[in-house]
């Protein structure tokens, strides 16, 4: 009763939303028939680099970069070809091969590997291959001194190929294939510095936590096959309105669980901060720009399920809202520059999830923020990598300070990314985050206010990061000589910084909304309680307060070189990732360990005890009987005689009776 009321109170209104569109993809022709190359190129690169071994050490990084760049070119050509098509005709399918066919309830269930190229996947293709290519270029410089650079590029190519399978697949089965592929690549790359126990542990943690989400994915897949008899998006979206809401809600929540795991959303958020053990380009590519946004992609792609399952949609909003505050609070207390950015990533993905959960009104903004975030967060992660590169791999911001003179290009590009993420008017983040907060306010003011507060906290921790890294007194050790990174690293920074600034053009004239309409449906204009300009000013004011707060708390004071310990409870909690690990350990790990230990004891004492006891009984009795074989012929003769007498007596008894 109470639960129902609560759900109703939280339920986000989607009244007036149109039914999700049903588009049967047309066959690929012309330039689009080369679509398979997008995946094939990086896959080939990964195969060559990982199989050829040390022979490819000298040119491996070049091949790895070239394949992704080639992939980007194909994506670009495909995108232009798609632009040239009519709006209703922008869904293109390419059937590769039939994976397997099985009988299912008298029908044939055919698992086809087919590509779906539509406005949504087109944007992802550009983001993945574009940002991916830039990060490949950057990695040439960043990993130059690493003897295992070739292997690194092999893994990166593997990741790109898997991620492209994820976003290009025309159904959940192929999506799942890519889903697991990026999980594997993420595991390999987080643990790339495998000689460090912390990196190996972080990789394992990411893998295990993702496995929890993957259980949701597998169950959702099973439920989808059982309900619809098909896994293709087109088939499911055509049939989704005829399926009961209970089933769709179940599928929705299972998909949400999967999205939580991959996108590091509460309650499966704990792995992302540890994942920063990986090389910084990995953090930029996988744990900021692309892979962690796969959960958002999944929700947006599954709009035909969530549109008919309001409770699951509300779940998405709740998860997004909680995570955007969660990540932001963690970001405020961390001193490790990469962990601040990781908390920020978590928080920004929370924004996307929130938008995706708002339904038709929010899908386009979720994707918009995903793209702009892909630009500015990759930019800042690579900037952080550039700082670390010049500071002997130091990550503690308390050992930075006054770096703006030593590395001007890094500083300038980082500053542009910073302005974008806090939502400085005119920068890309300003447009995308404002739209999300606006839509949230229009749909449900609680969520909207939470998103607004999140924007202020974001401004606070990002300003803190900027001040501690680039401003103030120099706090680095004498043997550290900060220097600007080589051109091969700064060029991608400049390109990404430019994209961070101008990324907002995508929404000019609502282009992105119209572009995505064939996939997610047309949003009705929402009515805000106050004019848009008031909200924009309010957001900007909140951001300004966050910046000012950071200036008063961090910028004006001297930053201690070691973290102060006499801090408030909130800071301690945020430093400990808001006790996410403690909760997991107390709630799952320890009881699990106790259970397994108990089962082990049970197996050892009861199961093995029974077996060993049986064997022991027979051993004891056999050793008793064994004594009869004493080797004395005369005793054998006696038993012979006794036996013969016994037979005789028995015969006598039988004869007489």
């Amino acid at each position, binding site marked *: 009763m109470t639960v129902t009321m609560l759900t109703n109170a939280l339920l986000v209104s989607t009244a007036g939303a149109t039914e999700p569109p049903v588009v049967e993809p047309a066959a690929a022709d012309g330039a689009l028939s080369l679509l398979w190359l997008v995946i094939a190129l990086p896959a080939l690169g990964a195969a060559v680099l990982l199989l050829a071994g040390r022979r490819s050490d000298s040119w491996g990084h070049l091949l790895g970069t070239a394949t992704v760049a080639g992939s980007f070119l194909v994506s670009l050509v495909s995108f232009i070809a798609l632009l040239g098509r009519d709006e209703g005709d922008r869904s293109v399918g390419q059937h590769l091969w039939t994976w397997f066919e099985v009988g299912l309830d008298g029908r044939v269930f055919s698992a086809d590997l087919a590509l779906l190229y539509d406005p949504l996947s087109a944007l992802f293709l550009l983001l993945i291959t574009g940002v991916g290519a830039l990060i490949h270029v950057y990695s040439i410089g960043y990993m130059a001194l690493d003897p295992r650079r070739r292997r690194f590029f092999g893994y990166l190519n593997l990741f790109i190929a898997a991620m492209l399978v994820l976003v290009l697949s025309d159904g959940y089965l192929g999506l799942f294939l890519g889903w697991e592929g990026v999980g594997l690549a993420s595991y390999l790359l987080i643990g790339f510095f495998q000689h460090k126990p912390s990196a190996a542990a972080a990789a394992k943690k990411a893998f295990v936590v993702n496995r929890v989400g993957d259980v949701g994915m597998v169950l959702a897949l099973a439920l989808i096959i059982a309900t619809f008899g098909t896994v293709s998006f087109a088939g499911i979206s055509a049939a989704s309105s005829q399926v009961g809401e209970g089933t769709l809600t179940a599928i929705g929540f299972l998909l949400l669980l999967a999205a939580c795991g991959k996108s590091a959303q509460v309650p499966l958020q704990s792995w992302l901060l540890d994942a920063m053990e990986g090389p910084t380009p990995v953090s930029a590519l996988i744990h900021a720009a692309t892979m962690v946004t796969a959960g958002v992609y999944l929700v947006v792609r599954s709009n035909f399920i969530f549109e008919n399952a309001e409770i699951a949609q509300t779940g998405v909003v709740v998860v997004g809202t909680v995570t955007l505050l969660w990540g932001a609070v963690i970001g405020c207390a961390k001193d490790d520059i990469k962990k601040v950015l990781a908390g920020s990533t978590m928080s920004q993905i929370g924004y996307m999830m929130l938008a995706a959960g708002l339904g038709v009104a929010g899908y386009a903004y979720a994707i918009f923020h995903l793209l702009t975030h892909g630009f500015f967060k990759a930019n800042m992660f690579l900037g952080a990598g550039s700082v670390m590169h010049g500071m002997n791999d130091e990550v503690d911001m308390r050992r930075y300070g006054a770096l703006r003179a030593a590395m001007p290009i890094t500083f300038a590009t980082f500053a542009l990314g910073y302005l974008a993420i806090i939502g400085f008017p005119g920068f890309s983040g300003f447009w995308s985050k404002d739209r999300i907060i606006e839509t949230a306010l229009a749909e449900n003011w609680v969520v909207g206010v939470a998103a607004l507060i999140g924007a202020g906290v974001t401004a606070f921790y990002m300003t803190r990061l900027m001040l501690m890294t680039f401003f103030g007194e120099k706090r680095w050790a004498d043997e550290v000589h900060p220097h600007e990174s080589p051109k091969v690293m700064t060029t991608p920074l400049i390109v990404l910084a430019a994209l961070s600034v101008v990324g907002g053009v995508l929404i000019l004239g609502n282009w992105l909304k119209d572009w995505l309409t064939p996939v997610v449906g047309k949003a009705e204009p929402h009515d805000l309680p106050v004019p848009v300009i008031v909200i924009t000013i309010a957001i900007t004011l909140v951001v300004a307060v966050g910046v000012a707060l950071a200036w008063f708390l961090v910028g004006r004071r001297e930053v201690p070189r070691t973290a102060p310990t006499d801090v408030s409870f909130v800071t301690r909690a945020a430093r400990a990732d808001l006790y996410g690990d403690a909760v997991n350990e107390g709630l799952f790990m320890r009881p699990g360990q106790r259970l397994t230990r108990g089962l082990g004891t049970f197996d050892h004492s009861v199961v093995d005890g029974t077996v060993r006891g049986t064997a022991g009984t027979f051993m004891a009795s056999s050793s008793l009987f064994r*004594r009869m074989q004493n*080797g004395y*012929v*005369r005793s054998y003769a006696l038993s012979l*005689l006794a036996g013969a007498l016994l037979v005789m007596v028995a015969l006598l008894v039988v004869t007489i009776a």
Partner: protein
Amino acid sequence: MDVTPFIALSAILFTIGCVGVLTRRNAIVVFMSVELQLNATNLALVTFARMHGNLDGQVAAFFVMVVAAAEVVVGLAIIMTIFRTRRSASVDDASLLKY
């Protein structure tokens, strides 16, 4: 014809043989006791053959003799070999084949 004395003699001889096998340690004596048992059996066979008036029992007795002859050859050879290797003809000394 009264077979009782023959059967009684056969039983007495067989019992002597049994006691010999069970109580004596010298392999040769044990062997002789076994022969005594065989001959007691032969006597019983021949007696019953006479009683029934056919040759079945006598044929069986011949079989026993032939087998006993063969057995003596092999048995004595074994006893000889054991005596040579172990310097003893006691059946209790040859007790290696056990648990």
